[in-house]
């Protein structure tokens, strides 16, 4: 379906611009798609849809709760609404509407939440979204995606349209480091992608953590001779249990990386799968350590909170030091 986005675009467009472009492309094919924003048409790039389809674009002003309710009504009447605002508002300001109007009714509303994590760094904690994964993870019926970059955003947005039910996709402000030079790769909701094979340790990342994990893995292979498996866990819910289980069995050491509070996000989602497996595994969660992050450029904040490649390298070395007792029956542990 649609165009394949290429590497030429990837240096030129921000992640949100990929979203805007992908949505316009979907809008051309599907007249039932409408778009809503709360005075953030320009910032979230959903305004690109509005320029192309003014009759199917609704700017409700700075009123997120109303936006979610209106979208729910539209979906009930047969339209497919895409809604965009900043992640922190999408998940907190209108959480009740997301919960009751959209998830409970299990309707076709697609929330594309921008400025996720600490990507709007200088705006400070009112504009950092470090709770949205935790909030969204606990809402039944909701599919939760955190794409690694612009190309993956294109694929996630398309998949959201093609899959009935509510979606929450969180993307960053500004430009993401390129993980995928093209959108032409296999993207399946709920199916993690192994980007680097490895047997010593697994780094499970989402969003901007994916590029950083890959950079760290390459460095560690050269400098420490470590084989680091890197998994892009783009779908936080439903999480790919099989990929986690395989990582536990194959490497027995796991690190998670997320631009989010370590309470309630990717790390906890992975941890709950591990705990249910009943097998020992050295484990560390990288992310915002249950505090409000400082202000700054996104890359600086990532460095300060330790989710850039340096932070991951350090964490890998630390977790590699953990000893395991030799146990022939480990395969049978419950």
């Amino acid at each position, binding site marked *: 379906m649609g165009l394949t986005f290429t590497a030429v675009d990837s240096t030129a467009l921000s992640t949100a611009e990929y979203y805007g472009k992908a949505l316009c492309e979907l809008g051309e094919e599907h007249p039932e798609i409408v778009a809503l924003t709360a005075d953030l048409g320009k910032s979230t790039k959903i305004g690109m849809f509005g320029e192309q389809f003014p*009759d199917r674009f609704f700017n409700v002003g700075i009123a997120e709760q109303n936006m979610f*309710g209106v979208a*729910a*009504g539209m979906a*009930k009447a047969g339209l497919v609404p895409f809604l965009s605002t900043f992640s922190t508002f999408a998940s907190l300001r209108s959480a009740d509407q997301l919960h009751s109007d959209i998830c*409970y009714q299990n309707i076709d509303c697609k929330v594309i939440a921008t400025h996720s994590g600490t990507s709007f760094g200088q705006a400070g904690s009112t504009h950092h979204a470090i709770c949205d994964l935790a909030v969204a993870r606990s809402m039944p019926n909701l599919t939760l995606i955190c794409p690694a970059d612009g190309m993956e955003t294109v694929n996630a947005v398309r998949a959201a349209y093609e899959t009935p039910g509510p979606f929450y996709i969180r993307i960053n402000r500004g430009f993401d480091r390129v993980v995928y030079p093209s959108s032409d790769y296999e993207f399946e909701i709920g199916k993690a992608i192994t980007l680097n094979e490895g047997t010593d340790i697994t780094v499970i990342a989402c969003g901007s953590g994916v590029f950083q994990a890959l950079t760290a893995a390459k460095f560690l292979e050269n400098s420490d001779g470590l084989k680091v498996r890197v998994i892009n866990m783009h779908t936080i819910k439903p999480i790919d249990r099989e990929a986690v289980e395989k990582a536990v069995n194959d490497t027995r050491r796991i690190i998670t990386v997320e631009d989010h509070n370590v309470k309630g996000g990717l790390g906890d989602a992975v941890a709950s799968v591990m705990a249910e497996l009943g097998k020992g595994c050295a484990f560390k969660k990288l992310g915002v350590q249950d505090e409000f992050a400082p202000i700054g450029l996104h890359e600086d904040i990532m460095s300060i909170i330790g989710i850039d490649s340096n932070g991951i390298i350090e964490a890998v070395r630390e977790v590699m030091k953990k000893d395991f007792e030799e146990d022939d029956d480990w395969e049978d542990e419950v």
Partner: protein
Amino acid sequence: MPLTKQEWLALEKKADELRRLSLDTNYWAGSGHIGGAMSIMDMLTVLYHRYLNLKKEDPDWEDRDRFIMSKGHAGIALAPVLVDYGWNDFEQLKTFNHSNSAMGIHLDANKVVGVDASTGSLGHGLSIALGTALAAKTLGKDYKTYCIMGDGELNEGSIWEAGMAAAHFKADNLISFVDRNECMIDGKTEDVMALEPLAEKWESFGFIVKEVDGHNIKELCQAIDFALENKGAPVMIIANTVKGAGIDIFEGDYRWHYGAMDQEMYEKAKASLEKYYAQRKARVEKEA
């Protein structure tokens, strides 16, 4: 179209039947939001038996008029209406609020046939109704959307967000009601959080406002007829009502927002409804 005396009497009869059915449901359930159910039953009767364009054989008909019950706790009023309409099994009412029943305090649109939106958390309904109204315009459909809000829920900021947007988008296919029974859980609305001057508030938000006696079927019909003719702005019908209307032991008492009644109270309530129906019929004879 003006309401004939015969039509008015028929609506009074239906409203009486539905009040009784709601009272019975409340009794079977053990407890319920009886006060706010009685205050809107005339509105529901008029909507479901005179105005809503629905197809009995196809509850999901895409061109049907929509009804959004923003005051979701009045499910004990809407469920009997939808059962009586033939869309849900009568026996279900006897399970209202029982464990694992499809019907509970706040009706689930995915479980109860004919419910256009699951509501319960207050202040959501007007936004949802605006969404279905705007969808009609986007899709080029003629259906109307009706919404009933409680007066207490007007404390929620989201209602006013929706109001601002309804006027901004000129949603003249949206007809809303405030069930102005002046009661909320903790007391009278003007004591807990004053709403007056309410009509002026809605007018200043860009609505065309009609104030009516919410228990006068003729006045309700006149207001809806006016709203259906109206173009360019949304209409808000402020229906002045009595909490628990028709049941003298509950009438106007905010403590009967939610409650349980014993056999004795139930019998008294039934007798009161009978008396109330007689008064209502006498009014038709006088005013028709």
